[in-house]
């Protein structure tokens, strides 16, 4: 078959699929230019997540992060596992092509100085985004993705010898990655273990106490100067997810770099 036939078929299939989805969404009233109210499930989360004693209280004003780690926490844990397996697969495919010595070459003085100045700022921004994930937009995934830009800059400017001298060894990063995923799982089943020991009902990835499950994590600390919001599991899971994503992407980029650029 000619390539133009392929193009015509694929465009037709894509347009039919997209039109079907769009018409279904618009006809059912979920989307469209005239919609003035959110759907009921969205309104339940928007009115429930920041309000104490409601159905889905998460002790956090950030609805998106709350739904990611509280209502669909086990789903997010398995997505983290997918990420873990993809990076393990990357390392497996590249195995046997690693160079023995690190690449010594770098770029000119301007690139070196600028990358050395900008990389710490990127790391601080990523930490801020991850640690305030339960208060402002951001979270573990976003912080980890921002962190991965700093090793790319340092690799471009200085070569991988600089990263190795800073302590970004392959084994260290792999163990950090495994630690992150393991701690996410432990945080998820923590309430279950405590519930078994105390003999009360509990769920996996439970954040705040529910009417059926009277135990939960520490949501906020009351001080005379106001509440210090912790968000229960949200801050813990954000930190662990940041560890996992940042170490995983740094590991993968380091592996791709040290497998050797250029043709043999």
């Amino acid at each position: 078959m000619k390539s133009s036939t392929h193009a015509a078929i694929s465009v037709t299939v894509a347009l039919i699929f997209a039109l079907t989805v769009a018409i279904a969404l618009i006809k059912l009233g979920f989307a469209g230019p005239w919609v003035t109210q959110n759907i009921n499930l969205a309104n339940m989360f928007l009115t429930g997540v920041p309000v104490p004693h409601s159905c889905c209280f998460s002790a956090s004003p950030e609805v998106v992060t709350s739904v990611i780690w509280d209502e669909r926490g086990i789903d997010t844990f398995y997505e983290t596992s997918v990420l873990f397996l993809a990076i393990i697969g990357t390392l497996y495919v590249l195995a046997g092509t690693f160079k023995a010595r690190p690449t010594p070459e770098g770029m000119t003085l301007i690139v070196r100085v600028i990358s050395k100045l900008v990389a710490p700022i990127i790391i601080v921004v990523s930490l801020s985004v991850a640690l305030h994930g339960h208060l402002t937009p951001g979270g573990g995934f976003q912080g980890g993705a921002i962190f991965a830009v700093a090793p790319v800059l340092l690799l471009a400017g200085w070569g991988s010898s600089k990263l190795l001298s800073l302590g970004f060894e392959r084994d260290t990063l792999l163990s950090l990655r495994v630690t992150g995923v393991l701690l996410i799982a432990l945080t998820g089943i923590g309430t279950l273990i405590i519930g078994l020991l105390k003999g009360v009902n509990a769920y996996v990835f439970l954040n705040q106490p529910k009417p059926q499950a009277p135990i939960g994590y520490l949501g906020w600390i009351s001080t005379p100067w106001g509440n210090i919001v912790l968000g229960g599991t949200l801050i813990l899971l954000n930190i662990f997810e940041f560890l996992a994503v940042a170490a995983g992407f740094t590991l993968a980029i380091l592996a791709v770099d040290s497998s050797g650029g250029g043709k043999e």
Partner: protein
Amino acid sequence: MTLEAIMWYYILATLMGLGAVGLCGMVCRPHMIKKLLMLTIFSDAIELIAVLAGYRISATQPPVYPGGVIQGFVFPNPQEAANFANSAVDPLPQVLIVTAIVIGLAVLLFLATLASQAGRKFGTQNLNKIEKRGE
């Protein structure tokens, strides 16, 4: 039909066109890296269509309750939360897509290393040339 409705439908149509371009490029371009490039464009289009489905024209703020500070945050009462829900967009499509972006990056990393190893094995990443070698 108002001007806002026309612009909403126009954005939907261009995003569907973006997805069609991505799928077409994935199918009919022979170079592996071009296929991966078009895969990223296709996933961008799908993500944007999902976010557009959760958007309302009358909404004025993202689904984050305002005033998130480390110390001194006051949890709202049900009336304030209802007012907030009336002016915020739907959070559920965004929830589904935050993880999809990062997972998409990991999958792209895996596919790019596969393409890199194919280039090392065959000396080319053009699928037409690799097919001709086999004949």
